[in-house]
């Protein structure tokens, strides 16, 4: 398991993301699966930094990643006030299509196989099945 605690900083978002993507490429995971994980991880980190910690550099983000032969699990937790993930508007409704925000969690839910929120929305755990390829 890879575990990192990082300050709220979008440059570090990319650093963590690159580290995990490198791990997946080394494990010869399918490029399309890596893309899905890449987008979802960065959306989760972005949400944690912007909406969770509200860009407060004193607050931290915890990232856990676990790669097994057929499954990748990633957890991202912030120190913000939490939110209710069941009350998010659907960004694909016609009235929301022209809205600039609201697509991050929607993308995570579509690109990953499981997305679970805990701790009043502060912690998200995402799971992606990697097929039958062995490490």
């Amino acid at each position: 398991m890879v575990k990192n605690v990082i300050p709220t900083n979008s440059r570090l978002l990319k650093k963590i993301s690159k580290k995990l993507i490198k791990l997946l490429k080394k494990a010869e995971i399918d490029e399309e699966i890596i893309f899905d994980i890449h987008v979802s991880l960065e959306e989760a980190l972005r949400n944690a930094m912007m909406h969770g910690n509200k860009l407060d550099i004193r607050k931290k983000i915890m990232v856990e990643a676990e790669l097994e032969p057929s499954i990748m699990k990633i957890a991202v937790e912030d120190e913000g006030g939490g939110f209710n993930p069941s009350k998010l508007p659907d960004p694909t409704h016609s009235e929301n299509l022209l809205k600039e925000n609201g697509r991050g969690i929607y993308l995570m839910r579509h690109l990953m196989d499981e997305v679970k929120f805990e701790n009043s929305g502060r912690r998200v755990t995402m799971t992606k099945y990697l097929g039958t390829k062995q490490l």
Partner: protein
Amino acid sequence: MEISVEEKKGISIFRMTGDIDINTAPELKTSFDEMAKRSGIKVILNLKKVDYVDSSGLATMVEILKKLRDNNGSLKVTNLSAKVKGLFEITKLTQLFDIFNEEDEAVNSFG
């Protein structure tokens, strides 16, 4: 991200290279700010060399589209990779944007 701009048949063609994400989307927005204020602007975004877009990138493209439409302009998007096109499809932004496989098709569609 690198952005090159070419004027062709009265159309501004933006060709981007790199990721359009939380770190680079503001640069894309800034490059359009002045132009989007003019009336009737025709713009093509060529994403041939863009392998990665996040929700910040999508949001910025929606913002650009809105600004152009507000000023009677129009925007067409071309050369999306399969992965990036997949994001447009999931979010149903395919309903909002005119998307073309090739830049020339988009140029000709302006008539």
